[in-house]
């Protein structure tokens, strides 16, 4: 039983890492849209963010998996899960980036401009490295949440941990054992990551107080 669940763990981790990576990149566009110079782009980004955050992830998952198939080619369950969770992650990570950007000391931008760096260089060399450092604990915390959300993918047939536990329940009736093991595996991954995020957060805070 344990082995079957562990095979599911590979899929849980795959969904989490792939969606998180796509989300981390897409999130840059979300924050760029949110802080755009053009009011229209700001408004569209804002509406998209609120819609994505205020509709349950399960609904998005079903829209992508069952709904989009009406329009074009049917996605595999795994692909549908990746698309859904990447988009959701991009919104949350985008908001995390925005928080980090807001906490960037103004003098950094002024100094960069005064030495004649262009916009691309300011973004790549000044803003992104510093923002990334302040927001990395929040990103880890979000990754933990994303891993827990990935359990939803079981409902559309991705054979991750929760799906495997369901299978075991149906074939052996040992649901309590199976789901308890699954729950503890989620916990075993998230607790150390969470502790590490708090530790890094503490260090970042201490450093910023000095500045």
């Amino acid at each position, binding site marked *: 039983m344990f082995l079957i669940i562990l095979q599911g763990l590979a899929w849980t981790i795959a969904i989490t890492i792939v969606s998180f990576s796509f989300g981390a990149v897409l999130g840059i566009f979300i924050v760029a849209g949110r802080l755009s110079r053009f009011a229209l782009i700001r408004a569209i980004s804002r509406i998209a963010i*609120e*819609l994505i*955050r*205020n*509709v*349950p992830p*399960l*609904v*998005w998952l*079903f*829209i992508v998996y*069952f*709904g*989009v*198939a*009406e*329009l074009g080619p049917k996605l595999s369950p795994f692909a549908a899960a990746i698309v859904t969770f990447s988009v959701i992650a991009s919104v949350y990570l985008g908001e995390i980036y925005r928080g980090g950007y807001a906490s960037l000391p103004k003098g950094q931008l002024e100094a960069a401009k005064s030495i004649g760096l262009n916009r691309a260089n300011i973004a790549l060399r000044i803003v992104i490295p510093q923002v990334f450092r302040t927001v990395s604990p929040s990103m880890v915390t979000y990754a933990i949440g994303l891993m*827990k*959300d990935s*359990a*939803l993918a*079981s*409902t559309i047939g991705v054979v991750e941990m*929760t799906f495997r*536990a*369901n299978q075991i*329940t149906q074939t052996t*009736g*040992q*649901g*309590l*054992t*199976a*789901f*308890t093991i*699954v*729950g*503890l595996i*989620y*916990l075993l991954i*998230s*607790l150390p990551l969470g502790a590490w995020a708090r530790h890094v957060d503490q260090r970042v805070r201490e450093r910023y107080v000095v500045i």
Partner: protein
Amino acid sequence: MQFFTTWLEYFREVSGGLGSAVQLAIISLTLGYPLALFLAILLDHKNRYLRWLTIIFVELGRGIPLLVLLYIFYQGLPQIDVVPSALTAAVIAFTWSTAGYATEIIRASINSVPPGQIEGANSIGLSPRDRFRFVVLPQAARIALPPLMGLAIVMFQLTSLAYVIAISEVMQAAYFLGTKTFDYLPVFVAAAAVYAVITIPAAILVASLEKRISRFAT
């Protein structure tokens, strides 16, 4: 036009699940928040073992995905010959999860009451019990209110998960309608709209409340 009237019909039908969703959310919040206050107080208890038990209980509620908690109670308990109804299983799972998250919020709020308040309470000779009831708790409640309301919105969204254990909430209604009409996209968009109609105004309300409260802070 035809498309729109059909969609409105879908919206009406899917929103039929709203009653169960709201019911589940309200029961879990009214059980979960007081439980969370109790747990937040226990985290300061003199007895080390009690403190540890509380931490474990809170971490299990937060760390295990709600979907898995639902399955543990609904699909798992029959293994030991306890067969809860779908609603009972859902209420237990949602309450546990709510309590887990809310404990963290309440605890952080209690800790963020300025220490001068406690010193002040001590200096006028309040007992620890009165100090907590009349000085710390009212101020912590004000700090905790916006995040607790935010959590309530999240829990309402999460009632969609109860669909997996056959509770006739919004997603169940949408899925049923989808398999009947094969018109999945409009049907699930209708489900999204049913949630958004409630969650977006609620989120705006919380944001404005947060602004008002922070204006009076310190």
